[in-house]
């Protein structure tokens, strides 16, 4: 089996292909899907190929994409909005993130999402981490800094959107634990109250 480079997912070929088509279609439709980890990884491959077709943007590639997707409205979205979003990005259009199992069988679960989309979980998580640092007055972790760079590099108005999201989360913290700290992004605030708040 070592020469086969994809997961069987416990299905015969036709069933597997149909499932992956459904998953990818849902991904393009909703920007983010939650499924099991192996399925997410397999769907990721297909989705990346599909977006590559969209970036080529030729007649042939359009036909190929049309063949794959079940709904033709999504073809417009793929060759419109998504193609423009990834015009400058060479690969890595999707992301798989581990989440806690949501099924009764405790299967390893994951979120498959389109990078820089409206449902970018890592963008939001990074913003929340920065918001917590801002609220508590603690320094930003080096990994979080790296993530900020990753998340805002190709996004249009990335930095501004990021700041807005951080503000939203800071407001949330203040609402939850009391708005003693300053809501601006000043980093030198007393950490004593912050630790008591958490």
């Amino acid at each position, binding site marked *: 089996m070592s020469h086969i480079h994809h997961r069987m997912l416990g299905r015969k070929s036709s069933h597997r292909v149909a499932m992956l088509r459904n998953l990818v279609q849902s991904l393009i*439709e909703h*920007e983010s899907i939650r499924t099991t980890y192996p399925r997410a990884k397999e769907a990721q491959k297909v989705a990346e190929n599909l977006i590559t077709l969209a970036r080529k943007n030729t007649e042939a590639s359009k036909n190929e994409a049309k063949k794959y997707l079940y*709904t033709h*409205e*999504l073809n417009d*979205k793929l060759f*419109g*909005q998504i193609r423009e*979003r990834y015009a400058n990005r060479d690969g890595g259009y999707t992301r798989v*993130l*581990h*989440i*806690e199992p949501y099924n009764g069988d405790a299967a390893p679960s994951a*979120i498959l999402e389109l990078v*820089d*989309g*409206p*449902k*970018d*979980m890592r*963008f*939001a*998580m990074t*913003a*929340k*981490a920065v*918001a*917590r640092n801002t609220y508590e007055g603690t320094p930003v*972790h080096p990994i*979080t800094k790296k993530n900020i760079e990753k998340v805002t590099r190709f*996004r*249009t*108005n*990335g930095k501004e*959107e990021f700041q807005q*999201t951080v503000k*939203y*989360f800071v407001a*949330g913290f203040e609402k939850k634990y009391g708005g003693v700290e300053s809501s601006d992004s000043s980093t030198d605030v007393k950490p004593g109250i912050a630790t008591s708040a*958490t």
Partner: protein
Amino acid sequence: MASILLRRGAFTAAPAVTPLFWRAPAASSILSFLAPTFAIGLRINVPPIISDIWESILKAVPKKKQSHSRKRMRQLAGKALQDITALNECPGCGSLKRSHHLCPTCVNEIKQMWKEGVGAGGSSTPALSEPGMGDARSSS
């Protein structure tokens, strides 16, 4: 015992038929005189009446059926669940979470934020007909 003796007599007598045939009764009578000592010492012979139950009952076997509990304890020995030690602090909320996994509390909170229409991607991807897509799906 008698059966063995007869069989042995028959075996020795078989190659040479006539000269030993008349001697056989005499030999058997001598050996039958010694027979009880052999029988007690060796215990080779199983009477045909109990030969059916000899293997299953009369040999050394457990006295009682092992209880379900004992059986499961034996078979599950060394198969207990492992403790999860790969844990760290969620950067978003500070609670404990599994390493390399997203914190479920934060994930739910972020989803709630998206439901409210706040958050990422407002300008970069102005919601390509989200309701329209929903309609297409519900109609199909």
